[in-house]
Structures are given as C-alpha cells and as structure tokens.
C-alpha cells in the first residue's frame, strides 16, 4: 500500500487550560476510511475540523503535528493547512438543510467550490457533477441540479452535499455525522451511496459518528474518542471482535439489549377508534386509525419521520384536534381537547417529550419542576413535599441534591430523568413517550431505557413508546405497531411483529437498522426501495 496521506501525531487542541483533544494520533492511507466514534462533547467534530486546519472560536492547536501529503504542519502554522480546504480536503456537514443556501439551485452550489478554487472549469465541473449525482443514486441528475434545496428530501440533500465535496476530487473528505439527522431507511441509502462513491473515487475519508454500527459498516479502521482522549484505535474487524477498553465494549453492547419477558393478555386501558387527523385542507396525516393500549404493558409505535407517530401521540395527549375519531379511557369517553378533560383524566395521562431541553422551563429549579406537580396532585407541603421529592428523584436514579439545580446545570440524561420524575409526580396511569431517548448519547439512552423498563414493571405503568429505532423496540416493548403514512401497517405482540413473514415496509425498516455484522450494508441493499426509482443497485448493474 502507498504511504500515509494524513498523519496526526500527538495532537492536542484546546484553549488555555481547557484541552478538548488530548494527545490523539492516527494515520490514514489513500482510499481508506477512518471512523471516529464518541458521545457528544467527546471532541469528534473538533478533531474533524482540526484535520482541515480549522479551529472554532478561541480553540488553537497546543502541541503535536499534522502531516498531510508529506507536508508537516506544526501548531504555529496549523492554520496554513486551511489553504487546502475546498481543493484537497472537503467537508460534509451534519445538517445539509442548514448547509445549502435556500436562494440558489443545488447545481450551482455543488460546483461553486470546485470552480472558485480553479480545480475545474465550469463546464467540466458541470459534467463531473452529473456523473457524481448518478454515482450517488440521485434520480434525473439534470433536473435535480435545477432544483432548490427545499424541493428535495433530506437524504437527497445530504447526497448533494457529498457530491459537492467530491466535485473537486479531493484526497480527503471529512464527514461529520452525515446520516445522524436522517431516518433509518434514508440513512441506509445515503450510507451506501457514500461508501460506494468513496470506494470508486479512492478518496480517503474521516467519518465521524456516534453510532458504532453505522461507522463499522463504512470504516476500515476505528478511533474511539472519550473526553478528548483516544481510548481505542485499530482495524475495524479487530475492534469489533475484541475491544480492549471497557467503554468500547459498553458501546458495542448497547446493540444487544437483554430480552424482555413474553407479554400476556391484558385488559385495554385506552382505546382509540377510526382516528383521522389532518392539518389545514391537505391530505390527512392519519387516516382511519384504531389502537388499543393494554394496561400495564409497553406499546411501541415505530415508523419514519413523517409517518404521523408524533401527531398520533399529540392527539392522544389532547394537544391536536382530530377531524374524526373516538377515544375512551378505562371505558369512559375522553375528550380530544386537554382543556376539556377533568383534572383526574389529565393526571392519568402524562407526556414525555423527545427533547428534555425544551420540555423543562429553563428558569425553574428541579425542586419547582417536580414539586409543583407533587403539590397539585397530592396536596403535600413543607417537609412532606420535600420527602416525596427526594423519593421521586431517587426513583429516577438522581441524587436529591440536584433539586436545587436549574435544567442548564444538568446533563442531557439527567434532564430527561427530571422530566420523567415530573410525570411520575402526577401518579399517572399512562405515559406517552415521544422518542424520549433519541436525543441522547447511546450509553445514556440505554440507561434511560432501562429506567423506563424498571418503572413500567415496578409501577405497572402503561407506556406508549414512540421511536424510530428497532433496537429500542426490542429492548422495551411488549407489543409493537408499525406506522407508515398515517396507517398502522402491522401490529401485535413483539414476537409476532418482529418475526417473518413481513410486509414490504416492515421488512425495509428492519433491514435498515444498522447492525455490527460485517455484511449488513450489502445485504440491506437487496431489499427493494420503492421510494427511490433509481437505486444504487440499478446504476451498478
């Protein structure tokens, strides 16, 4: 093999006493992909940008060196590396929708950097772009180039951004979580397109992600970061087989949740019949949907974004007025408007938001956030209220001392636990959870899921658990419903729903779930994807 294209040696990045990247070393050969894994705040993006000679805010390289194409850059001249940006090194950002200018067509933006840096003439760039669009599996390349960012889907936009990066034929591309914001099925397409394009063009890539399963599919070697320190570095296959560090092993194990006891038959607590919900005069988001929540069980609702999962949850919570439908709670009719419900009914159904950041008032302390519900629900005051508060915080595995903190002084997982404690203070019957773990890091999410499982079993709660992640379903649900375009395409006990024969959509959804098995990406592509007329496979054959 050729010698290293990029060599990073003992790199430290930080500002004064704060060190964000601490002594990281790795090398990357031409055509290879290095996966960088870590939770949020681990320094992944900082490392990705450092490789491009870019440092955010007051950050500066402190020591170490970066060697790119035989030329070594030391801390004092590290920013000189930035002259390679757009020519030899390109970048693909996490949110493609924020990366494109909404006022210009995609085509002009894709070729802009290559033309600006004089790598290609506009005509040559145009031709290259059309080839790249085809390579990345984008339908009708010529028409696609004329579209504006808002006229294409998120997955297509992410591929257009990859085309933008590939257009200057760079030697190195930094991918910063390119599929994190996408649905599982879309992620599959984008991932396959990226891998194929990178292999075809023999471009080296630094692929940053928090999902070890995704990275393991695309990377030749892996670098695991934690708190800015490199804790594991080696060939992907070796790390998957025998990870040395306990943190890496824990990351790998998040994909293998413990099995749940088999569900028994239970009486229904909430029944929904023939629900139709629409916004404005458009086509209904949910049509003729019926659903029964069995008491004391976890009912998972799984589907892609836009399938109507959240709309369904909000309708049940009483936040969205439907066009038609009937709802009963414990056999009695329940209003679709939360203001019309009795206090008792309101306490019985509690809602957990996806983002605890926005669900907790930033100006209230934990004491007030949780205490307010205790006071209103049980009428407790003074010492009794304090005791109940401590008990609830302990129940969600939080230290009682945290009661005096504001949400901004808590971590993401702690915030979600406070939100759960607030719901528990209402002594509910049903918890509606709208993707409560999807904004959390894998290990933190695992802890919160375990808490849900334990609460459900100990308190006999009924959980409606909305998620897009099949792994979550496996670890928590007794029953499952698969939602697609406002309809339940499949529902029943977990074992029944997740065993073949499948309908087309469920099969696609299950296949799209990233796994750690080496051949997953290739096998997943064999499932037809009806929404993308020109799939990667068709181009390849």
């Amino acid at each position, binding site marked *: 093999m050729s010698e290293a294209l990029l060599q990073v040696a003992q790199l430290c990045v930080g500002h004064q006493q704060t060190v964000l990247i601490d002594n990281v070393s790795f090398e990357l050969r031409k055509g290879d992909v290095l996966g960088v894994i870590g939770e949020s705040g681990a320094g992944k993006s900082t490392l990705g940008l450092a490789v491009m000679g870019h440092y955010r805010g007051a950050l500066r390289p402190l020591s170490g060196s970066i060697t790119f194409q035989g030329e070594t850059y030391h801390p004092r001249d590290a920013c000189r590396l930035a002259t390679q940006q757009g020519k030899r090194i390109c970048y693909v950002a996490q949110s493609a929708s924020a990366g494109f200018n909404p006022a210009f067509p995609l085509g002009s933006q894709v070729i802009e950097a290559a033309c600006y840096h004089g790598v290609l003439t506009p005509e040559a760039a145009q031709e290259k772009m059309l080839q790249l669009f085809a390579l990345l599996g984008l339908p009708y390349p010529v028409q696609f180039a004329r579209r504006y960012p808002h006229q294409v889907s998120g997955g297509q936009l992410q591929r257009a951004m990859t085309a933008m990066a590939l257009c200057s034929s760079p030697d190195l591309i930094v991918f910063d979580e390119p599929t994190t914001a996408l649905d599982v099925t879309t992620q599959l397409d984008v991932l396959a397109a990226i891998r194929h394009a990178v292999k075809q063009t023999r471009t080296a890539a630094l692929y940053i992600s928090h999902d070890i399963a995704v990275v393991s599919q695309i990377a030749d070697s892996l670098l695991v970061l934690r708190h800015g320190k490199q804790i594991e570095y080696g060939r992907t296959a070796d790390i998957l087989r025998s990870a040395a560090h306990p943190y890496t092993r824990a990351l790998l194990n998040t994909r293998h949740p413990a099995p749940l006891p088999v569900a028994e038959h239970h009486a229904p607590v909430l029944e929904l019949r023939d629900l139709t919900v629409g916004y404005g005069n458009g086509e209904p988001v949910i049509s003729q949907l019926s659903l029964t929540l069995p008491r004391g069980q976890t009912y998972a609702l799984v589907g892609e974004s836009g399938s109507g999962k959240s709309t369904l949850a909000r309708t049940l919570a009483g936040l969205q007025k439907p066009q038609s439908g009937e709802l009963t709670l414990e056999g009695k009719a329940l209003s679709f408007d939360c203001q019309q419900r009795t206090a008792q009914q309101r306490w019985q159904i509690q809602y957990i938001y996806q*983002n605890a950041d926005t669900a907790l008032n930033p100006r209230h302390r934990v004491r007030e956030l949780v205490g307010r519900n205790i006071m209103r629900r049980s009428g407790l005051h003074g010492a009794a209220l304090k005791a109940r508060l401590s008990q609830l915080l302990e129940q969600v595995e939080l230290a009682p001392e945290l009661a005096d903190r504001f949400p901004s002084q808590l971590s993401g997982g702690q915030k979600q636990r406070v939100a759960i404690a607030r719901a528990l203070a209402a002594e509910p019957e049903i918890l509606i959870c709208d993707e409560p773990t999807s904004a959390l890091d894998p290990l933190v999410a695992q802890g919160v899921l375990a808490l849900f499982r334990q609460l459900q079993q100990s308190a006999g709660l009924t959980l409606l658990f909305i998620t897009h992640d099949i792994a979550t379903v496996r670890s928590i649900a007794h029953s499952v419903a698969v939602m697609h375009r406002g309809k339940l395409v499949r529902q029943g006990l977990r074992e029944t729903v997740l065993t073949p024969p499948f309908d087309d959509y469920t099969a696609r959804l299950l296949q799209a779930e990233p796994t750690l098995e080496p051949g997953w990406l290739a096998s997943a592509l064999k499932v037809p994807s009806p929404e993308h007329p020109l799939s990667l496979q068709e181009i390849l054959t």
Partner: protein
Amino acid sequence: MKSLFSSVSAVTGAFLLILFVFASLAAPWIAPYDARQISGEIWQPMSAAHWLGTDNLGRDLFSRLLSGARLTLSFAFVISVMATLAGTLLSFLAVSVGGAVEGILSRLNDLFMSLPSLIIALVALAVLPQTNSTLIVVLAAIGATRVYRLGYSLASHILATDYMEAAKLAGESHAYRVIREMLPNARFPLLAEWGMQFSASILFISTLSFIGLGIQPPAADWGAIVRENKDGILFGVSAAFYPAIAISLLVIAVNLLVDALSRKLQQQEDQ
C-alpha cells in the same frame, strides 16, 4: 453584574445617571436659591452668585434645573414603569389566552401604532383635563403600545416551547402560566425595553412641555425651561442650552446603560 460594568460606556452611563438621580433627590439642600423666586436681573450670564446665570424672569437657572430634574426623572420613571407593566401583561395575556382576546388587543394596538404618537398625545391632552395624572396615563398608554409589540413577539416564542405545552397539559391556569412560566424567560429583554421606555419618556415629556402641553407652570421640567428661555437665543443668551444639554446627557446615560445591558444579554445567550 461585574461584567456589566466592565465597559467604559456602561460606567459612564451609570455615573451620569447616579449623578442626576442624586442631584434631583438632594435638590432642596444643594439649590442656592428658591427655584420660583426672582433673585436677580433677567438672563444674567454665569457668575459666582448665579452659577448658570438667570432665566427669562430673573430666577436662578441652576436651582430651576435641579427642581426640573426631580420632575423629569420622577415622571419618566412612573411613565416607563406603567408602560412596561401594562404592555407586558396585556401582550402575555393576549398570547396565552389567544382567540378573540388576542385578536382584539393586537388590532387595537396596531391602530394606535399606526398613528403618530405626538398626534395622539396632542388630541388626548387637549380633550382631557390638564392634570399631571392625565399626562402620565396618556404617555404610559402610548409607551405601552411599543412594549406590547415586543412582549407579543417574546410571548409567542415562549408559548411555542414544549414547557408551555407541558404546563397546558398539566392544566395550569393562565395566571400561573404567564407569571411563573413565561415572564421569567422574558425578563432580560423586558428590562432592556424598560430602559428604552425611560429614555423615550424623558424626550416625550420634554417635547410636550416645550410645546406647552406637558407639565404646567408654575412647575417646570427641563422641556418647559427650554421653552421659557428659547427667545433668549435670539439675543445671544445661552440659558436655553443648559436644560437641553441636561436632557441630552440624561438620555445618553440611560441609552449607554441599556446598550451595555443588551450586550451582556447577547453574550449570555451566545453561551
């Protein structure tokens, strides 16, 4: 608070404001003459006896400025507090309740904002009895329309958050939602707006007093003192300039402080 006063402009603003407030509070003790008694010839230049000279009737100008400061500052304070409170509460209530209440309040506010505020003030003060309380209420109402606009946009943003929805789901009352959930999240921009209202009120009262519709004689605020002495400008008498300079310095001082406050808030938000 420490970082608020780390800039030169904020310190200057605070120093000037404190000086004015102190001067107005201590006016009876530091004023060399009775502000309403004639104590010399008219339009005397600066001298040891009359530090800033005398006015159009021969009263000591420095003493008059001190008593004017009391009026200007206290009126501006009361008007800006009333305007900020009324505008904030009405806008937050409108957003929280929604429906017809929101529609009617917002359209009424649009109506008032579409007319020049000086015209509204002239008509209202001409029709209503000429008392200080009328003046305060009219100016506070005009100021409140501006605060309403800001409060409405702040409240709309806050209402769209998940925590407001959670409060609704929990069945909290409108009063609780507005006072405990929404207002604490809007306090800094509203505080800055109160500062802006304060300086706008100083200018507005001075303007009205200058055209004779504001504070009525024998009491005189700075605007009124400018009017009394404006004819002297034709004869090269600078008596009208001192109250004008005082007005400018006070407004600049308040604006410097508000600017420093907003910068600090921006920094906080960036973090």
